[in-house]
Every structure is written in C-alpha cells, then in structure tokens.
C-alpha cells in the first residue's frame, strides 16, 4: 500500500527538482519507503524543495526552470509540426483524387502556390532534422546506455512506421490482385468507393493518425525525461559541444515560418482552385468519397491551429530565456 504511493509522492516535488533527481530518488524509495513516517519525511522534503526553488537564491534552480521552459517550447513546435504534416498528407491525398492536380499543372499561379507548399514542406522537414538531430542522438545514446530509460518509448515511432509500411504493402497487394477480399475492388473509380475499400482507407488513416499521435507523445515523454543541457559530439578530429535546445531554436523558427507560408499558400491555392472548379469543392473528393468542402476546411483549420501553436512555442522560448 505504502509502496504504491511512490510515484505520487515523487510528483509532489517541483518539476525542475524531478528532472535532476527523480530517477535516483525513485530507486532509493524502492528500498526505504516502509512506514507512514517515511511518507511524512518525503512530504516535508517536497515542501522544502518548493521553498528552495522559489527562494530565488540558487541560480541552478532558475536555470533548470528556464531549461524546462525552453525544452517544452521546442517540443510544442515539434508536435505542431507533426500535426501540420498530418494535415499536409490529408491535403495531398484529397488533391490527388480530384481534378485539381490537372488544373494546377495547367495554371501557372496555382502551380506556383503548389510548388511553394512543396518547397516549404522540404525546408520544414530539413529544419526539423537539423534542429532535432543532436537531441535525437543524445536521447538515443542515453537510452542505450546505463538505465535503458525511455528505450521502449523510442521504439514507438519505429513500430508506428513499420505498421504503416506493412499496411501500405497490404493495400498494394489488394490493389494488384495478390490478395482478394470480399467487398473490395482492385481498381476504384474516382468518387465511387465500395464499403470494403472505404474500410481499408479508414484503416490507413487510423494507422497513420494514431501512429503520428503515439510517436509524438512518446518522443515528448522521453525527451522531457532526459537530463540534457549540452552534449559533446565527436566530429572529425575535434569535439563539438552543442547546447541542445539553443541549437534547436533557429531551426524551430524556420519550421514555424515554413508552416505559416504553407498555410497561406494552401488557402490561396484552395480558394483559387475551387473558384475555377466549384463542382470539386461541393463534390465528394475527400477520403473514401466524403465531401471536399468539410475536408478542406478541416485541413486548413488543423494547419492554422498547428501554426499558431508553433508560434506560441517560439514565444515561450524567448520568455524562458528572459527569465534568467
């Protein structure tokens, strides 16, 4: 009974304190949490840690707080980017199944807007990779050594990706006639979706959406529980010390700006394309033959929310830096 309280007791301590001491403190509690007096001692310790944190004396505490704020802010930008990617895939899926792509290729203004979306998506991806690489290497390195803490969580994106690839192979096998399923046709006519094919597409979207969500949550959890401020990497003939979250700031700015440009370009492209082809906008070119209009509005809404969240994340980084 008393031992089952351990995780709750540790959570009474300030976040900055837990970032530094939680793992070893929990290991200690596994051995010496036996009586109500032990609980009382921990409660007093938690109060003491809060008092110490807010006394304003030790700079290290304030730095830990700042670090937490910056880390959370960078993670907000990352999560917003993943949300934006999901919206982007939905947009491409919707456009691919409609006459809008043919119209885009024939119209220079639409083509320019679509090209801007593609270029910005590449820029945003590159920025996320550059900004996140030192962080990813460090987190993986920490997970593989010593405690193996977070190793299971890091496998979530890997399994999510494998599940998606396997499912795509399954769809390809159905489409090529290697797998025959009742109520599923091999070649779907535009706008006409048999229930079996609709179910397969629902499965694809579910695997993609759940995988993206689970991967983002897993990465968020493992990063926020890894004690990182700076890390030294072995580069060619020299050591390279990187302050991880400061390093990620400018790539996060680039990612956010790319998201904003993509949002504007998407709205512009959609408005112009739908004005040229009103029948498409009021038609059923959404996934599995659903309405185009609600899907496009949903996609732009998700993009707007994600871009707004990314800007909030960047604002928090700056306020975190000023708090020291």
């Amino acid at each position, binding site marked *: 009974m008393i031992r089952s309280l351990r995780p709750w007791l540790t959570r009474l301590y300030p976040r900055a*304190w837990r970032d530094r*001491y939680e*793992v*070893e*403190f*929990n*290991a*200690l*509690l596994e*051995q*010496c*949490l036996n009586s109500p*007096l*032990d609980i*009382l*001692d*921990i*409660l*007093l*310790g*938690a109060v*003491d*840690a809060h008092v*110490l944190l807010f006394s304003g004396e*030790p700079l*290290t*505490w304030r730095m830990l707080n700042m670090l937490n704020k910056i880390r959370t802010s960078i993670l907000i930008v990352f999560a917003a980017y993943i949300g934006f990617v999901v919206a982007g895939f939905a947009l491409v899926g919707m456009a691919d199944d409609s006459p809008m792509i043919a119209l885009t290729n024939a119209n220079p203004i639409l083509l320019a807007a679509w090209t801007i979306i593609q270029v910005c998506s590449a820029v945003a991806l590159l920025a996320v990779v550059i900004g996140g690489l030192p962080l990813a290497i460090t987190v993986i390195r920490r997970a593989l050594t*010593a*405690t193996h*803490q977070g190793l299971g969580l890091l496998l979530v994106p890997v399994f999510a990706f494998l599940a998606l690839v396997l499912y795509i192979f399954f769809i390809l096998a159905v489409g090529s006639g290697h797998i025959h399923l009742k109520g599923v046709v091999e070649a779907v006519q535009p706008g006409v979706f048999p229930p079996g094919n609709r179910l397969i597409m629902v499965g694809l979207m579910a695997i993609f959406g759940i995988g993206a969500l689970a991967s983002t949550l897993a990465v968020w959890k493992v990063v926020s529980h890894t004690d990182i401020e700076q890390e030294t990497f072995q580069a060619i003939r020299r050591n390279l010390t990187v302050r991880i979250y400061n390093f990620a700031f400018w790539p996060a700015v680039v990612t956010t700006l790319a998201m904003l440009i993509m949002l504007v370009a998407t709205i512009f492209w959609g408005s112009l394309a739908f004005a040229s082809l009103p029948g498409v906008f009021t038609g059923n070119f959404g996934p599995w033959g659903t309405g185009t209009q609600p899907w496009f509005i949903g996609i732009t809404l998700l993009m707007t929310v994600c871009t707004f969240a990314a800007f909030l994340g960047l604002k928090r980084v700056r306020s975190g830096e000023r708090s020291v």
Partner: protein
Amino acid sequence: MDINELGHFSNPSLLILSSLAGGEKHGYAMMEDIYNMTGVRLGAGTLYGAITRLEQAGLIEALPMGDRRRPYRLTAQGAAVLHQALAELEKFAGLGLKRLATT
C-alpha cells in the same frame, strides 16, 4: 537518554559529508553508512533535501549514474568545510568535557 535525542548528529548535511569522507556513495549506501556511524536513520526526503543543498553549494558532486543509482563524492571544498566543522565540534567537545571534569 539516547545521545541522538540531544541533536548532536542531527545535522543531515554534516552526516552526509562525514559519510562521503569515507568514499563515494549513492543515496541508500549513505543512509546505511550514517545509520552504522551514528544510529540516525535519515528519511529519503531529508537525505535528498540535504544532497540538493550540498550539491548546489559545491560541497559534493554527482558522478555518472549506474543502474538508476547516482553516487556522490566529496569535493575539495566539501572536505575543507567538513574539516572545519569537525574541528569546531572537537573544540566544543573538548571544552564541554573539561567543564564536566571540573564539576
């Protein structure tokens, strides 16, 4: 009356520094060592409250974690502070014993 009730060894920071003077230790090893030295069993909250302050003051330093346990060791500054504190205690103890002898 137990001597511990007088509070001679109730300063957790001093106990931790004294324990680490015997070599690097993680939290549980410190608790056991302090109990064996003085009969005082520090609670986990008290122990880590003191560890936090000692580390911030630069009197002890953390070593790389192994198997979810992080060992700590005394710094040069910590050793100097401990030496001074024990010398004062020794002086105080000598004075007290001398006064007792004259009564």
